[in-house]
């Protein structure tokens, strides 16, 4: 066990996976000599050489497209997209190719690859270094979408994603990269996909969050506890396929749900979660499901702390929902 932050835990997960399996390789912009713009891959090119840690040309189409070919061959490529905001030049390869290859070949071929990418706001990154495009990938059948909130889960989910036989988009909350530390095993281990975690048990309202916003949901829950509102906070960890059980059973208990995410509200993942709960637990609902999300604007700079669904915006909604 070592105290690690999120960056170190992911680094450790990559290192373990590469030591365990020769077929695992990394590719991306600036990940080798520089060790990544967030230093997540620091030291890996030194240890595994430039054949397994590829500093690629500036092309997300190439980074994802060639990784698909490698995965089809039998390797386990891990692509890094420097910021989620820059994933769109590789979008076609991801949603039309990686996502559909198994289906269209009836399982004869498949694409075991991971696309890692830092997402979200809170680092003063403005429009193009803050986006949270997860719902686009959740909408795409054939992709798995993972988003850890803490170092322990990050390492375990990453190793599990690399072992997974399907393409996984792995969102890393860059706001959390160096913000928290916790005990993380040095040896490899896995955290299963599609299992959410109750990080705070509560009776009055279910609050679902992931990634960096988990901390905000938690902080808001602690805050409203002082006013007698007892919130159950669920960290999704894997966004899709969803751990529907965890959410529905919590809502059946509380009768209320608040979903928190950074992405713009409209057609964000929150709308799917609200709809699923409405479909599956309608008669248990005692208040309208609520969303606390980014606004329907491009991501701003100066006022990002008002744009983001931070605790100050979550708490009143928790109370409003609890007291509805």
């Amino acid at each position, binding site marked *: 066990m070592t105290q690690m932050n999120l960056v170190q835990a992911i680094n450790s997960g990559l290192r373990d996976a590469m030591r365990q399996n020769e077929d695992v*390789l990394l590719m991306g912009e600036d990940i080798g000599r520089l060790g990544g713009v967030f230093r997540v891959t620091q030291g890996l090119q030194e240890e595994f050489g430039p*054949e*397994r840690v*590829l500093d*690629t*040309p500036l*092309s997300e*189409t*190439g980074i994802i*497209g*060639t*990784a*698909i*070919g*490698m*995965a*089809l*061959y*039998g*390797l386990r*490529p891990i692509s890094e997209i420097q910021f989620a905001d820059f994933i769109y*030049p590789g979008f*076609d*390869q991801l949603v*039309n*190719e990686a996502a559909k*290859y*198994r*289906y*269209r*070949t*009836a*399982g*004869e*071929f*498949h694409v075991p690859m991971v696309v890692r990418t830092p997402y979200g706001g809170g680092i003063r990154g403005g429009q193009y270094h803050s986006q949270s495009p997860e719902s686009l990938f959740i909408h795409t*059948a*054939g992709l*798995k979408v993972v988003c850890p909130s803490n170092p322990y889960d990050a390492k375990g989910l990453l190793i599990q994603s690399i072992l*997974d*036989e*399907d393409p996984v988009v792995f969102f890393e909350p860059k706001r959390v990269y160096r913000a928290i530390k916790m005990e993380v095993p040095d040896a490899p281990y896995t955290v299963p996909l*599609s299992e959410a975690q109750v990080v705070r048990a509560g009776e009055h309202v279910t609050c679902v969050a992931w990634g960096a916003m988990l901390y905000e949901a938690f902080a808001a829950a602690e805050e409203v506890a002082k006013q007698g509102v007892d919130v159950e906070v669920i960290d999704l960890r894997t966004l899709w*396929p*969803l751990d*529907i059980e965890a959410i529905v059973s919590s809502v059946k208990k509380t009768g209320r749900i608040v979903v928190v995410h950074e992405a713009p509200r409209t057609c964000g993942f929150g709308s799917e979660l609200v709809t699923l709960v409405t479909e599956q637990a309608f008669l248990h609902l005692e208040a309208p499901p609520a969303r606390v999300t980014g606004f329907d604007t491009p991501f701003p700079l100066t006022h990002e702390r008002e744009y983001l669904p931070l605790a100050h915006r979550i708490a009143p909604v928790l109370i409003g929902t609890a007291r509805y």
Partner: protein
Amino acid sequence: MQVIRDDGSLDPKLDPGLSIDRVVALYKAMVRTRVIDDRLQKIQRQGRIAFHVGSLGEEAAIIGSAAALRDRDWVVPCYREVGALLWRGYPLQKYIDHMYGNAGDPLRGRQMPDHTFSKVHRYLSVSAPIGTQIPQAVGLAMAAKKRGQDECVGVFFGDGATSSNDFHAAMNFAGVYRAPVLFLCRNNGYAISLRTEDQTAVRTLAEKAAAYRVPASRIDGNDVLAVWRAVREGVQRASEGGGPSFIELMTYRLGGHSTSDDPRIYRKQEEVDAWRRADPLLRLRKHIEQEDVWTDDLDADWLSVCEAEVKACVQRAEQKPPSELRDLFTDVYEAQPWHLREQETQCLEGPRAKDEEDES
């Protein structure tokens, strides 16, 4: 580059030295491909299959390339290269079943006709979005290289695909990583209705390769031996660690873009007629006739063998039931998640759609 001269003889300086049996095998494969094409086009016109995209006039480029690749090499198709897959021994019945999307279709009715693949034949999957296969092919080649395997990858695409994002990324990566890949560009003169000269300002597509430091050649794609020779050279280069090659195969799409297309709208009959005279089958036939290994009788026999084979496959295909409804819900992921299980149940237990004729 031209190996088979107009009079049917070979240019001795360029003759790649294939045995005459092998040359005849090439001819037979080209004829077979065309017979299949003709038949599929007809049954599509009759509404028995939904769609077909053929290779009329491009058989030499496709079969010649396939033959010059070694068994352990990979083929990454565009969508006109089923001839290459059949050359590798893929069962015709399976292909025809696919064209019908029936229960024998290895794709389980999930894609349009002509979207073939076969892992044992080292032949990746046809995909409709133009160009996407090109970086995948480069990745495949990089992977083979990383594993230290002497395998290379031949990737087909059209003139139109050279404008795609994927072409640019793929060529650049291949150049940088010296991937053992052959870029097989079928320049058939058109991207649906757009002439190659309107696709790009450059005069030859081979010139594009220089932008990535990929060695290039431009050859007569209707001359199967010229194709063989150029592709084999590329294989050799790749095999010796020399990295990628780009080969522009100059040919012509004698038919429509697909059965959905009417090429008369955008090109003149005279142009087509001129290219008909450069038909790669005629060219090769002249050569093997001159070599005294082929005759009108042999030709007629082979034609009827091929026709009978296709006909039998079509008959069998039409007797098979459609692919199963529950195949809709598998293979999205390795294991079926809860939401697809739920949707499968809903669908299977729900009512069935009315027949199409009630519609539009």
